[in-house]
């Protein structure tokens, strides 16, 4: 990783004469500045996180007791679908793009993203897409009841909400592809002199690989949902068995996209954690090159395991064995990463500020989620757990404790650089402990429910599942309320507080820390020289 830098012209020049920008609402609508766009992505992501969270709490409220309390079954299924789509396409992916927008140009010494206007467009496509997605709740027939996987034949039979969802996915997909093109182009062409690929911060590497994955899989998903649309309205039968189509093909295509999607979401989180752990261990990242190779290996293997989501559709035995072993193989590069993070901390001078707490929380909980993933990779076991709460527990340990905890760590890590103020460390630690404890209260019991056979995506359940469901619901509300602490801390940090120095973290080494805090509106108008 680059550590010694000499910006040409000095830091003060970075801002000199370049701070003019429109004010008011027009600043945000017309901006081409990567920091503004990054900020908008992050706020959009947080808003969607709250919307998806409210849906999750509504679902958990319904599941507090057996029987139907507050939702009709079809509305319950609609909220399940929207919760998944909003969290993945509205919260996690835009959140990761927000961090990329803010940090990649500063970490590689670039003045901005390569295509600044396209950057603006790729953000402003998201709000209409999100509105379109939510609009499904208010049209006849409501939102799709298919779950986020949109499997036919149900998705072919759904009402107008399904069309809105398909268009929303198209728009979000276009936004993601534009964002990816921008990120790859920026990293490949705008690096500062001396910033070779193997000197780049690992967050940039993780996003470079993620962006390639997005360009590879998003068009395939867009193609699949386009074919779904033509099946619904233009008389084709790609996936409609009634017309000779193949519904299982949709499952293959969806998971060919959907499994790399998991890594699209988690790889940037790996990058973020790889920034935080060395900083608070006051040691360079252990095994930088092996971390890069592990990222590449995970990315490539992610394309070879999709059918482990489909172990119950009737795959041939050879196929089952291949996907089973290939899935287990992913544990190797992932294990390399976990080992390297632990080795980075080994004999480090560790301090436990909020970013490091969240990074440690990530490490512990993501590894737990990884282990349950290994269990689910075993086909005979997976057949038993298919569509139970065990699967729900597994992917929430990966998605929430993995990606979201990494986002929280990165938010606290870079808040001083973004706002120019130090955040309230005490409240941030409260946020961590609230999130960590209530996350486990919410999701760990789901393992027991799944092992006992409770099916997911069903609004009612048998009496014997009541206790753990009640515990889970209490945990979910606790986790949701804990996030209000984050909102408060961030708002207070924006409004004021103790001024942050250029490098508030002793162990931080990458280029962004050579800039003053808050980072000037235009950073690195002259490329720094990386030695």
């Amino acid at each position, binding site marked *: 990783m680059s550590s010694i830098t000499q910006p040409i012209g000095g830091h003060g020049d970075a801002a000199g004469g370049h701070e003019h920008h429109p004010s008011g609402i027009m600043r945000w609508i017309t901006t081409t500045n990567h920091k503004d766009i990054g900020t908008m992505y992050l706020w959009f992501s947080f808003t969607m996180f709250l919307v998806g969270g409210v849906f999750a709490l509504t679902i958990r409220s319904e599941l507090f007791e057996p029987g139907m309390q507050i939702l009709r079954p079809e509305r319950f299924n609609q909220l399940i679908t929207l919760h998944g789509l909003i969290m993945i396409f509205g919260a996690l992916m835009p959140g990761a793009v927000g961090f990329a927008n803010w940090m990649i140009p500063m970490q590689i010494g670039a003045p901005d993203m390569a295509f600044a206007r396209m950057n603006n467009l790729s953000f402003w496509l998201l709000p209409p897409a999100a509105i379109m997605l939510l609009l499904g709740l208010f049209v006849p027939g409501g939102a799709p009841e298919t779950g986020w996987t949109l499997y036919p034949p149900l998705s072919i039979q759904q009402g107008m909400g399904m069309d809105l969802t398909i268009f929303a996915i198209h728009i979000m997909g276009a936004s993601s592809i534009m964002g990816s093109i921008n990120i790859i182009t920026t990293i490949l*062409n705008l690096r500062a002199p001396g910033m070779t690929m193997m000197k780049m911060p690992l967050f940039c590497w993780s996003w470079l690989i993620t962006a*390639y994955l997005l360009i590879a899989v998003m068009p395939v998903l867009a193609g*699949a949902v386009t074919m779904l649309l033509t099946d619904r309205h233009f008389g084709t039968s790609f996936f409609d068995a009634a017309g000779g189509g193949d519904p299982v093909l949709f499952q293959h295509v969806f998971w060919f996209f959907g499994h790399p999607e998991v890594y699209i979401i988690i790889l940037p989180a790996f990058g973020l954690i790889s920034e935080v752990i060395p900083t608070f261990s006051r040691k360079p990242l252990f095994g930088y090159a092996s971390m890069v*190779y592990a990222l*590449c290996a995970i990315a490539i293997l992610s*394309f070879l395991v999709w059918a482990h989501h489909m172990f119950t559709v009737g795959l041939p035995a050879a196929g089952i064995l291949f996907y089973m072993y290939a899935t287990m193989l992913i544990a190797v590069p992932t294990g390399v990463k976990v080992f390297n993070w632990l080795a980075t901390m080994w004999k480090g001078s560790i301090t436990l500020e909020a970013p490091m707490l969240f990074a440690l929380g990530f490490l512990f909980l993501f590894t737990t989620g990884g282990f349950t993933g290994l269990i689910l990779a075993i086909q005979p076991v997976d057949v038993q757990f298919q569509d139970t709460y065990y699967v729900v527990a597994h992917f929430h340990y990966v998605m929430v404790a993995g990606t979201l905890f990494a986002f929280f760590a990165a938010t606290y890590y870079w808040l001083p650089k973004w706002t120019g103020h130090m955040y309230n460390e005490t409240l941030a630690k409260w946020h961590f402990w609230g999130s960590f404890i209530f996350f486990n209260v919410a999701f760990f019991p789901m393992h027991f429910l799944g092992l006992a056979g409770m099916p997911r995506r069903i609004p009612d359940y048998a009496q014997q599942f009541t206790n753990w469901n009640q515990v889970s619901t209490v945990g979910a509300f606790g986790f949701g309320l804990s996030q209000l602490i984050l909102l408060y801390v961030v708002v207070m940090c924006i409004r004021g507080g103790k001024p942050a120095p250029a490098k508030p973290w002793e162990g931080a080494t990458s280029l962004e820390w050579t800039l003053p805090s808050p980072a000037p509106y235009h950073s690195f108008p002259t490329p720094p020289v990386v030695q």
Partner: protein
Amino acid sequence: MTTAGAVRVPQEDDFEARRRAAARRTGFGLLLVALIFFFGFIASRVWLSSDVSMGVVGAAVVVFVIVAVGRHLRK
């Protein structure tokens, strides 16, 4: 670079112009890949059987990722 027989020192504008041109080339290349995957996937499903279309598109996508990511590892 030479202009009218005189040696001209490369200017910062030249550097910026080259960088912009390189960025445009990369951007268009990636856009082309995305469009090929989108239309190629639909076309393969229209003209080929399920197994073959999945095989062709799957192989193309995996090869793209291996080549795209792999070539940066040598730098």
